[in-house]
């Protein structure tokens, strides 16, 4: 994790912030305080979070926790391969385990795996922890792992991670506790890949997903798709600590306002992913704490390079100059985000290239570039939708900037329903939204390789593809970093994907709920919070 601590920040300041938090100062007051000491707004968020954690206490056991996500439907599933909504992830994390997971610093930790070893990044040996049992009493064996991973390759399963799982050419059980994975090509990131939520380990042969039979911290008590799920503490959990809660209830309140109201009124303990606009409602409330994590989630403007007007030289660059990134972060995201520089590797990632500066907002320069591209004054449509976070507000910032640069953009809001299959990747200029991925390799192969399934701007570069394969197999960190830095530069300058900001996730929760920490895999501690938090009396 990149340390965001400003250089002149001292331990004394930390103490001051902590004291203020104890006093019950609102986030707004604290931010003011921080502003006074010259700390940038974006950095302020993470500092606060850290200070909040410092007021940590010893965990208490017991209690029933109620938490609300933002999306639920009858498509809710207990099948990790199909998991697509945040609620699915949270459920899977509570009921199942992965081989590995990422901690708050983005460092790979072992979960069901005891060790993962390789010499060439191609053949991997995974040894499982001993004595892990499923909720039905069955002991975890290597064949469960083999089955759980292999099913992603079966199209009938409809796995979301099929594309990533494809590289696992051979998955075999060596003995009861050892699994061997041979990759099609070397990939040093396999331990990180295995921490993806889709790669939860199931009992071999599971076919009924109306109940979850996992090794997780909670036993699935109730699962009603689109309504709620309830888990009770797994008494035989294999980890030394946790879970602390007796039971855990999770459901979704899709309406942001209703979700915030519910946490304010104390009906729920946690409201996940609240809208930046609601910050004022939760700020200054003693009984509410906010947990802010800035990961690699971003909403981007995609301009397809193989279609008009993206194919015209200068147009994409002009658009990059037209991004009023400050306005987006401060206006749309209300400061809950960080200005980005058109490439997907976030500052939370250890491979992030800090030398790559975002393009300034320069309508004049943009105008000149549009003139050059011969599109100046044309009413070019931009497709946007609620499906992508804040995309509509972004679109309006772009439109306003366009007016200054002599480009009357035409906003086309389309239904979020069906957006991903009908507009995303397809329209000449459209918005997309990408969730955090644990490694640059996944990001690049998913989004920027010439044959990437989600090549949002149809970026094609042989050099880039070569570098991607090269870096993947490298076990030398320094060399890898250098290659990834260059690739970031290439994406920022050549691709048609404009990433104006990394969006912070804000979870509002009752101050009684303790133990929340940020995680690069997403809000709610990478959706795994249920296992780690506790309720104070």
């Amino acid at each position: 994790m990149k340390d965001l601590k400003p250089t002149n920040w001292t331990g004394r300041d930390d103490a001051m912030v902590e004291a203020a938090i104890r006093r019950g100062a609102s986030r707004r007051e604290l931010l003011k305080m921080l502003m006074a000491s010259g700390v940038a707004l974006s950095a302020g968020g993470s500092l606060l979070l850290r200070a909040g954690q410092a007021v940590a206490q010893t965990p208490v056991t017991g209690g029933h926790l109620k938490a609300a996500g933002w999306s639920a439907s009858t498509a809710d599933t207990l099948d990790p391969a199909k998991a697509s909504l945040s609620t699915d992830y949270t459920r899977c994390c509570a009921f199942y385990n992965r081989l590995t997971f990422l901690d708050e610093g983005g460092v790979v930790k072992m979960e069901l795996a005891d060790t993962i070893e390789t010499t060439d990044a191609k053949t991997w040996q995974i040894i499982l922890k001993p004595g892990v049992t499923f909720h039905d009493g069955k002991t975890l064996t290597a064949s469960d792992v083999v089955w759980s991973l292999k099913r992603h390759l079966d199209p009938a399963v409809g796995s979301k991670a099929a594309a990533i799982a494809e590289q696992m050419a051979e998955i075999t059980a060596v003995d009861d506790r050892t699994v061997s994975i041979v990759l099609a090509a070397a990939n040093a990131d396999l331990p990180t890949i295995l921490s993806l939520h889709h790669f939860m380990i199931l009992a071999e042969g599971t076919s009924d997903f109306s109940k979850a039979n996992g090794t997780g911290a909670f036993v699935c008590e109730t699962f009603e798709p689109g309504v709620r799920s309830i888990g009770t503490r797994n008494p035989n959990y294999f980890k030394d600590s946790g879970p602390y809660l007796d039971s855990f209830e999770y459901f979704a309140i899709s309406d942001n306002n209703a979700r915030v109201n519910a946490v304010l009124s104390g009906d729920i303990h946690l409201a996940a992913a609240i809208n930046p606009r609601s910050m004022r409602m939760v700020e200054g409330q003693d009984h509410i704490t906010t947990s802010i994590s800035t990961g690699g989630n971003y909403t981007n403007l995609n301009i397809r390079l193989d279609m008009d007007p993206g194919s015209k030289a200068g147009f994409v660059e002009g658009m990059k100059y037209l991004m009023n990134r400050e306005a987006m972060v401060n206006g749309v995201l209300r400061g809950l985000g960080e200005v980005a520089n058109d490439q997907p590797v976030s500052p939370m990632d250890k491979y992030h290239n800090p030398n790559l500066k975002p393009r300034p907002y320069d309508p004049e320069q943009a105008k000149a570039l549009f003139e050059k591209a011969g599109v100046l004054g044309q009413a070019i449509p931009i497709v946007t939708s609620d499906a992508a976070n804040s995309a509509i507000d972004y679109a309006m910032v772009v439109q306003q900037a366009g007016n200054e640069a002599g480009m009357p953009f035409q906003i086309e809001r389309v239904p979020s329903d069906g957006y991903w299959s009908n507009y995303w990747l397809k329209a000449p200029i459209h918005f997309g939204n990408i969730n955090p991925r644990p490694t640059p390799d996944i990001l690049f192969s998913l989004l920027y390789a010439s044959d990437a399934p989600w090549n949002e701007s149809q970026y094609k570069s042989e050099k880039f593809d070569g570098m991607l394969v090269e870096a993947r197999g490298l076990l030398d960190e320094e060399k890898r970093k250098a290659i990834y830095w260059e690739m970031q530069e290439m994406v920022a300058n050549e691709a048609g994907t404009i990433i104006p900001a990394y969006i912070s996730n804000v979870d509002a929760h009752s101050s009684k709920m303790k133990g929340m920490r940020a995680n690069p895999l997403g809000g709610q501690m990478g959706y795994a919070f249920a296992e780690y938090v506790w309720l104070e009396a």
Partner: protein
Amino acid sequence: MLRSATTWILVGQRLGIALVTLLIVSFAVFFATELLPGDVAEILLGQAATPEAVAGLRTAMGLDEPAIWRFLSWLGGLTQGDLGMSYVNRMAVADLLSGRLANTLRLAGIVTLVCVPVALCLGIAAAMWRGSWLDRLVSVLTISVISVPEFMVATLAVLVFAVWLDWLPALSFGVNVDSIGDMLRAYAMPVISLSFVVSAQMIRMTRAAVIETINTPYVEMALLKGASRTRMVLGHALPNALGPIANAVALSLSYLVGGVIIVETVFNYPGVAKLMVDAVSTRDLPLIQSCAMIFCISYLALITLADMIALLSNPRLRR
């Protein structure tokens, strides 16, 4: 003998018409669903919907057969009481639906119990003392309520009662219901919001229907017999206004089954309306069809019930 025979024929006719209506609706819903872009597989895969993945999932879900064939087999199943399986999560539609329907009916039932007596009393009272302060107050209130968007009423209610006053829970579902009191508290808010919306219309229609019958010669006749106002209205006007009132009540109540989507959203109440919206967004045809059938059946049932009440309250039609 003859009388009962004709009654049965009438009932049979009505049922026949209702069945045909249902059939028409289910076909209409089917074609509408077919018109929607995307299918279950594409929607389920979302961002991961590569052509191969979609094709694979389609095969796996048995969506390869032509849609009309699947629809017809669903219809066939329906005749045997089988609502089919949800495409999306392979659960029986009946299971998915039963809990939601129970929720919806419970909410609708409570609202009906609260609303209908209140609305009828207010409507009749307003008509009885037409032009009085009560009438004016009622008409100002009803106009205000039907003029304000439902989501404003609901959101404001949450803010005032749950967040500021902390009297009632903000959610009606997901709170602990241990006692009757808890249950009352849990349902209070959606019931209040819905009651406002539903009863305003009922009050207005009741008032209009009663006033219309008050203006008839037989009510004037009652006046000329020396009847009190109460007797005139309750004894003479009301029995003849029952038909139109029942109709108005039925129309308002039919709203409670499918029209409560906003209240369900704001209070996070898992009812059938939300289920249908979900089903539509995932193109889950058996589920969409079943929900549509429920809306249609409840609408038809209420309308038919109203017709029956009108029929029974009118001796001329009763024969």
